[in-house]
């Protein structure tokens, strides 16, 4: 840049300063307003959206799908798209290092590359168009980051469409713009703007198409217990499903009964001070994760082929401590299910599921001796089992209801034999829980809370509400 141009620029700036404003208070005033706005926005975000709790680190869980901070998602998507290119896609560092490095280098050296002294947009169509295309591409790559490149049945179509939207169109448009500027030279500004606009519209449209045609796979959101109360409850649920069969619901079993292969085995009572005082949290967690192979206890940790994550095991240990260890004082726990108001009909989601998890699922899950009656989902409870159906809406004599009331079901062929024992096998349900089941079955077994709310009767005050719920069964 020659001195003449520099002087021209400085003079021009001088002129702008003369008809401008003062830094204080004019500029600072605007800055303060924007900063204050940002501060208020942050407080709102922190208060009303907050920070999602995530599960504890579990290096053994290789099924976890990594997801970077959202502002790196576009790079992630770019890598995924690039990886599909035959041959070139195998040279990973081209996409991870060479391309981003080059982009940043060009960006950093912009003042030395773009040597044209003009600052007005009309005179800078090429750089602004290229930047616009890149920014649109970055935003679109971010938006479609969660759509996989290959569908479940192996179709490459989403990947190809993503490559066209996120790579081919922007690249072609940028090359065209450069050709127009440096090779054809006479191209009008209008043509260049149209080229950029059309490429942006195509990219946006195709991204919309990708999102519409290929749904983002649903990720299973696992609730993370963060407060002590939640951790104890989560631990108790896990204990009920995984441990009760051998250790009993109160942990005082010393001789295993009714478990195939471990019948009559002698074990220490895990609710005793012997166990709780001598093993610290880490050791207890280790025992659960690794099992006690010599004593017949299988490993439960994911690292050793079990089902439980480190968070799960931690919760079980917390539950054990606060329930049985007399050195710990348990906080007030939440009830297993919200108590029913008069006339309220219980639902599967809110009432039945937590009860089943606590008392039934331990045996009534796949791979256990249970007459093939699985209770892990709403549909399974209704439909599975050798004697299915075990529950019928509106039937007071449903098998499930009978056995939890403590009445065994006799074998129809030989009435002296019991076909199904009273449940649960060691102990009995509280009348409260039996009542919940009864209300649920008699009112048509609603699955969601909304369905249940529709069936509920609000007792009208003064009309002598008896608290009797609607008993008309819905088929």
């Amino acid at each position, binding site marked *: *840049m020659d001195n003449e141009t*520099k002087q021209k620029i*400085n003079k*021009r*700036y001088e002129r702008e*300063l*003369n*008809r*401008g*404003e*003062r*830094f*204080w208070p*004019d*500029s600072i005033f*605007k*800055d303060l*307003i*924007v*900063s204050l706005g*940002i501060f208020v*926005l*942050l*407080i709102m*975000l*922190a208060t009303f*959206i*907050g*920070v999602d709790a*995530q*599960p*504890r*680190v*579990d290096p053994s869980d290789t099924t*976890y*799908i990594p*997801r*970077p*901070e*959202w*502002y*790196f998602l576009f790079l992630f998507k770019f*890598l995924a798209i690039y990886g599909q290119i035959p041959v070139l896609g195998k040279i990973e*560092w081209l996409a*991870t290092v060479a391309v981003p490095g080059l982009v*940043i280098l060009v*960006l*950093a050296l*912009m*003042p*030395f590359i*773009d040597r044209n*002294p*003009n*600052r*007005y947009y*009309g005179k*800078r169509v090429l750089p602004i168009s290229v*930047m616009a295309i890149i*920014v649109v591409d970055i935003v679109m790559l971010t938006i479609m980051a969660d759509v996989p490149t290959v569908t479940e049945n192996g179709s490459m179509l989403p990947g190809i469409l993503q490559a066209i939207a996120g790579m081919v169109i922007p690249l072609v448009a940028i090359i065209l713009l450069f050709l127009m500027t440096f090779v054809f030279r006479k191209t009008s500004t209008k043509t260049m703007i149209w080229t950029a606009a059309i490429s942006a519209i195509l990219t946006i449209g195709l991204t919309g198409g990708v999102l519409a045609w290929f749904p983002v796979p649903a990720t299973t959101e696992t609730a993370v217990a963060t407060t002590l109360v939640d951790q104890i409850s989560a631990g108790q649920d896990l204990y009920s499903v995984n441990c009760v069969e051998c250790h009993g619901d109160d942990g005082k079993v010393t001789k295993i009964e009714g478990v195939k292969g471990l019948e009559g085995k002698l074990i220490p009572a895990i609710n005793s001070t012997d166990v709780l005082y001598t093993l610290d949290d880490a050791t207890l967690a280790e025992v659960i994760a690794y099992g006690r192979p010599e004593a017949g206890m299988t490993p439960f940790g994911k690292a050793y082929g079990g089902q439980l994550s480190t968070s799960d095991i931690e919760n079980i240990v917390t539950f054990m401590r606060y329930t049985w260890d007399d050195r710990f004082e348990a906080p007030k726990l939440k009830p297993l299910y919200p108590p029913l108001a008069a006339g309220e009909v219980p639902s599967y989601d809110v009432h039945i599921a937590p009860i089943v998890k606590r008392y039934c699922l331990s045996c009534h899950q796949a791979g256990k001796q249970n007459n093939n009656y699985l209770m892990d989902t709403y549909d399974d409870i209704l439909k599975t089992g050798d004697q299915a159906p075990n529950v019928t809406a509106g039937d007071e004599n449903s098998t499930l209801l009978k056995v939890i009331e403590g009445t065994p079901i006799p074998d129809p062929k030989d009435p002296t034999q019991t076909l199904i024992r009273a449940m649960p096998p060691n102990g009995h349900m509280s009348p409260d829980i039996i009542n919940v089941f009864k209300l649920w079955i008699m009112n048509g077994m609603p699955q969601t809370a909304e369905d249940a709310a529709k069936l509920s009767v609000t007792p009208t005050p003064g009309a002598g509400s008896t608290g009797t719920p609607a008993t008309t069964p819905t088929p």
Partner: protein
Amino acid sequence: MWKNVYEWLDERLGLNDLYKNLLDRPEPKGNWWNTLGSAALFLFILQGVTGIFLTVYYTPSPDHAYDSINYIMNGVAFGWLIRGIHHWGATLMVVVVFIHMLRVFVTASFKYPRELTWLIGIGLFLVTLGMGFTGYLLPWNQQSYWATTVGTQIAGSVPFIGDFILKVLRGGSDLSALTLQRFFSAHIWMLPAALAGLIGVHLYLIIKHGESNFPSKED
């Protein structure tokens, strides 16, 4: 009385000079887009303040990191607010810095005489991303652990020196307590120091050359 105090201070601190040189300067006619730089500075300070508060309870060890954050969220009075602001502030800072860069690009403010300001700005942008990357690991949860595993892997794909970079980042061949420790150190000492230094130069250059005017047909 106050006049005397002010004069005493002015004699020693040069308050009048400061006012004349820093605040009472002419600027080209203002534009709301020009506030993004100061917004980024504000966010940097806010991140610094909330970050300092977070270190009171946060423990950078694999055994305690997760629980200490849990405690900040549930046990410490207004801990959730401090962490919430820090969490969302990081997101907003990346957005604001990026849009600030776009604004400078579109108005071509990086041209003579502000080339160096731009170059340092790119450095600021990269360090800000580095802050995001290192801070993401600190909660030591599944998400951060696996994202960092992949992130460092990508850094390790550089030809020839990739393995060296990977080991420097992770402090070994796998993610471990060392990784957490050095990400923590980078997040609260090295990168903020670099950021603060670069911001100082950036600001000096802005005061030296003044804010660029919004380009019109004449420019």
